[in-house]
């Protein structure tokens, strides 16, 4: 199939609160990915950095920052920002360069050193920024939006807080098997229930933490991979970067209100569902073809929402799918075999790249105790603030 690129290498820096700079995490991940690919940094024709947002310039010019740290060697460079979708857009930019013949080998890097506590907007009085406004006017943190979604699911679909806790139980058991995860301890439903409420009905252990971390990929043309003797590489077959369709009628971070449907009927599918559909259409596969999925579990309840948005089950059936064990190891469609954000925490520019690292290891059969047997097709799903879609489909 045309349009595919090879994943020659994947690498990560372990996630956690390490207290060091994002460049260190990114360089470590990049070196690991290069070593995995069996390539030298000098073999790389282009580097794409997923931007972190920190005061001062270096975070905003991640591509060149990583290139300088690895040693200037004249590679083409790009830096991309799309909030939580930054990593997927970095992969998209790299893929486009390879398919356009601009580069044979591209290094994609994302890394972050997250501040403690709630994510917050950049400083200063900025009433033209919706992200600033939701904090200033409403005090609406990210977890309050997750709480709204969770409560809505309970009211509409009958989900329970016990269902949500089981997502944490599942993901923490998988994180315990992943050497790159921040949290390596299994969590019980009782421990979730005993943790403090953050945003009703969600508790501390329902919500992902902020973390430091880094992830990197070495992508190449299929021809380059063949020349290197990699005859059956993991291939990226789709990268979905779509925007919502007007009117977007599900309240989205960081908005204070939805679009109005007074003048135009909303699409039959939600924004999140459209992200997955675009990926499926581009890849020529459907949910029934998947071996596994890595989804953006900012909260336990949100993971259930993704089951439906990815078409793993019907609307409102996410909790049922979980209860049946379909999304657990050995189930019909295991989800978040990496342990998910529940085990990693958020390192914004790295997480969409880290999801593709997990798919790569799974599709190669190198995921150790987390391995999904006979994995052939995997999807990642993610969503970037301000209307950035993010899904990647990889195959072997």
């Amino acid at each position, binding site marked *: 199939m045309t349009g595919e690129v090879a994943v020659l290498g994947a690498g990560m820096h372990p996630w956690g609160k390490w207290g060091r700079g994002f460049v260190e995490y990114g360089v470590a991940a990049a070196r690991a990915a290069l070593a995995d690919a069996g390539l030298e940094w000098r073999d790389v024709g282009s580097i794409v950095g997923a931007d972190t947002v920190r005061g001062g310039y270096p975070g905003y010019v991640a591509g060149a920052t990583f290139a300088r740290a690895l040693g200037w060697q004249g590679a083409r460079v790009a830096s991309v920002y799309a909030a939580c979708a930054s990593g997927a857009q970095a992969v998209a930019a790299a893929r486009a360069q390879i398919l356009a013949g601009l580069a044979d080998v591209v290094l994609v890097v994302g890394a972050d050193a997250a501040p403690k506590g*709630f994510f917050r907007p950049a400083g200063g009085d900025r009433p033209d920024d919706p992200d600033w406004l939701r904090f*200033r006017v409403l005090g609406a943190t990210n977890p309050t939006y997750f709480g709204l979604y969770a409560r809505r699911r309970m009211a509409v679909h009958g989900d329970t807080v016990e269902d949500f806790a089981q997502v944490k139980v599942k993901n923490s058991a998988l994180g315990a098997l992943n050497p790159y995860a921040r949290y390596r301890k299994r969590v019980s439903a009782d421990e979730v229930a005993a943790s403090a409420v953050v945003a009703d009905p969600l508790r501390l252990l329902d919500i992902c933490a902020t973390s430091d971390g880094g992830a990197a990929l070495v992508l190449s043309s299929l021809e380059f991979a063949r020349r290197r003797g990699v005859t059956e590489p993991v291939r990226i077959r789709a990268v979905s970067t779509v925007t919502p369709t007007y009117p977007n*009628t599900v309240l989205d971070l960081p908005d204070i209100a939805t679009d109005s449907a007074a003048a135009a009927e909303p699409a039959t599918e939600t924004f999140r569902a459209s992200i997955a559909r675009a990926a499926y259409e581009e890849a020529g596969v459907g949910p029934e073809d998947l071996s596994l999925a890595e989804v953006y579990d900012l909260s336990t309840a949100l993971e259930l929402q993704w089951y439906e948005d990815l078409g793993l089950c019907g609307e409102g059936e996410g909790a049922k799918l979980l209860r049946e064990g379909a999304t657990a190891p050995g189930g019909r469609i295991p989800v978040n075999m990496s342990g998910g954000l529940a085990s990693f925490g958020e390192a914004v520019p790295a997480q969409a790249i880290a999801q593709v690292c997990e798919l790569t290891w799974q599709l190669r059969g190198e995921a150790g105790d987390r391995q999904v047997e006979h994995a052939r097709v995997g999807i990642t799903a993610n969503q970037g603030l301000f209307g950035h879609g993010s899904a990647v489909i990889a195959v072997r």
Partner: protein
Amino acid sequence: MVAGWFAGDGDDFTLLGTRCSACASVFFPREDGWCRNPGCAGGDLAEIPLSRRGRVWSYTDSRYRPPSPYVTDPELPWEPYTLIAVELAAERIVVLGQAVPGVTVADLAVGAEVEVVAGVLHEDGETVWTTWQWRPTGVTA
């Protein structure tokens, strides 16, 4: 801070949005620059009051002190507030807001009716920062 987002006092308090004269799309927070409906050739945007009553789409609360730029007094113990997302039927829009002080998640249900009232976001020595808040009407049909 959010000039033109609401107006009036008491029973006359309303949120203010804008409406496109060409396609009738409604915008809140107000959109004064251009109509965002991709199927609309564009029209003048006129200010309109939004419905005062709506139904709870969902709700939650904030048990931990939010970071700046939310203004709180770090000297005082944190008092959680409730957030309500409210569906306005005529406008077919969902608007997030704080609940009036004293309303907790235990007082709410998805589908319950609430109305918009003026409230105080915070006050310092010089200024009282007004905002909108949602208050249950007691009707839960």
